[in-house]
């Protein structure tokens, strides 16, 4: 993984600090003042760089190969987890993982796309692009959760549903519609956490929830900035411009009322301190699960439906104007 261009000055500085520290240890000379001063500079630089990330820089952070995956969050957030496989119809899609986990002693159902941590694993997991059987597995596990009154927690990090011949033949569009519909009426609390990429219908199929949380360096939109740029200008290399236009950052989405809260990441991104990110996600889940558990399930479903019912911007036309 090449470092991002905008991080290079910081990474170089951090490298120098670590070299100086090693030198001190070896030579028994005292450079602690110099080190402290460099660390102050690094900390300022870090704030400067990461406080002003452009939308596209956030998109790239969301795709960082070292970024925690769904299984990482499952390991960090829950006390126990039993993975469950298969859609009972066709197969088991490794691009979506799911099962029952214990959250501070309480059983919950967890579902999310799984990207690979390296090329080999990415091929096995189809880069986290689900086939219809992945969505059918998700649907099955969510219905199972409903039956036993378990809250559902989904983690979302995928560019989209897999575009392929077999996926189309096995009903990709239909199953996404079914997931959206089923989650909308599911009689149990649902929390969705957008941890990385929230790409289009494939993400929404896991994203109809009572609370929608989003990590600071995640994106969520109807189309990827690359595809948008290639439609607008026939040039996917202008993705950075498209990312601005699409308003896909958590800040924008919070303002629009699409999401409910933003989970802050360590400076420099979730991958820089996975454990910290895991604790953050856990704290947010704890807070929102507590609220949702207090609400009657009828009301949860009503409010969930009302929330989406409101979304959209248009003008009523008075008949006189026609």
């Amino acid at each position, binding site marked *: 993984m090449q470092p991002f261009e905008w991080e290079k000055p910081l990474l170089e500085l951090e490298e120098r600090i670590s070299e100086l520290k090693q030198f001190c240890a070896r030579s028994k000379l005292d450079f602690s003042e110099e080190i402290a001063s460099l660390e102050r500079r690094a900390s300022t630089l870090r704030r400067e760089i990461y406080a002003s990330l452009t939308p596209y820089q956030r998109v790239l952070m969301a795709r960082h190969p070292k970024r925690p995956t769904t299984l990482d969050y499952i390991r960090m957030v829950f006390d126990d987890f039993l993975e469950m496989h298969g859609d009972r119809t066709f197969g088991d899609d490794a691009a979506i993982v799911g099962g029952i986990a214990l959250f501070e002693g309480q059983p919950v159902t967890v579902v999310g796309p799984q990207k690979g941590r390296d090329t080999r694993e990415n091929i096995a997991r189809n880069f986290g692009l689900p086939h219809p059987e992945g969505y059918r597995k998700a649907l099955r596990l969510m219905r199972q959760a409903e039956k036993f009154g378990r809250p559902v927690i989904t983690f979302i990090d995928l560019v989209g549903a897999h575009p392929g011949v077999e996926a189309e033949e096995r009903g*990709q569009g239909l199953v996404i519609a079914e997931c959206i519909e089923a989650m909308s009426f599911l009689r149990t609390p649902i929390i969705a956490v957008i941890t990385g990429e929230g790409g289009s219908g494939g993400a929404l199929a896991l994203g109809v929830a009572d609370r929608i949380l989003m990590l600071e360096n995640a994106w969520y939109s109807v189309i990827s900035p690359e595809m948008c740029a290639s439609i607008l200008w026939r040039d996917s290399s202008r993705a950075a411009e498209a990312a601005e236009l699409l308003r896909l950052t958590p800040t924008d989405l919070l303002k629009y009322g699409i999401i409910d809260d933003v989970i802050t990441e360590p400076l420099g991104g979730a991958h820089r301190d996975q454990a910290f990110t895991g604790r953050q996600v856990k704290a947010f889940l704890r807070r929102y699960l507590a609220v949702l558990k207090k609400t009657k399930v009828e009301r949860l479903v009503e409010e969930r439906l009302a929330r989406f*019912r409101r*979304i959209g911007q248009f003008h009523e*036309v008075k008949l006189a104007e026609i």
Partner: protein
Amino acid sequence: MPAHETDGLWVRCDGCGKLVFKRELEKTSFLCPACGHHFRMGAPQRLALLADEGSFTPFPPLVSANPLGFPGYEERIRQAQEQTGLDDAALVGRAAIGGSSCILAIIDFSFMGGSMGSVVGEQLVRAFEKAAAERLPVVAVSGGGGGARMQEGIFSLMQMAKTAQAVGRHSREGLLFVSILTHPTMGGVYASFASLGDIILAEPGALIGFAGPRIVEEATRQKLPEGFQTAEYALEHGMIDAIVPRPQVAQCVGRLLLWHR
């Protein structure tokens, strides 16, 4: 397949390659007189074909806002309105088909590819809500290219949830939804309300699917199978109830509405 305009008066048929006189096409419900190929048709013509004469009362029109402040979007909307005479890509209202009352929604491809933004989403939701309130069936004719209205970004995506939920509420009242897929029904339109019909019909040759054929081809680097994502292909793979040629659609829907009265 897009109809290639050769000049103002003639169109080349994508089915057989013959030149067809446009006036002739209007008389034949936009079917090629030589081979029966189904040309795309506008919402007003579709309405005339499907609904009982004089039965249609449209819902009040809505006009799109520009929620993301997307450059040039207002202008695109204005142009599409001028070209089509529609307020947006959905024509929605109360109608009768074969003597049975229903709420009818028709998506028009000529308005920005029939894409679903806030207005289309809201009109569809109102259609299902009105139908639920009056205990009427819904008939929706879908035909939207990419499905999503890119210029509305996340708002467009959320219309998938909003419309799917409206179908769900209507359905839970025990009411009928007949979804008719015409060329092309793809992306966000297909992966939301259009797939959720109790009965899903399609016109011959209509392109139906989630990811567009070019995207699938680029992503998989395979040659696509013959007839990939056509209505016939969808039928073969178990995705739709029946293929109904255009001249029989009104009569077919009329029978379905009658049987569910």
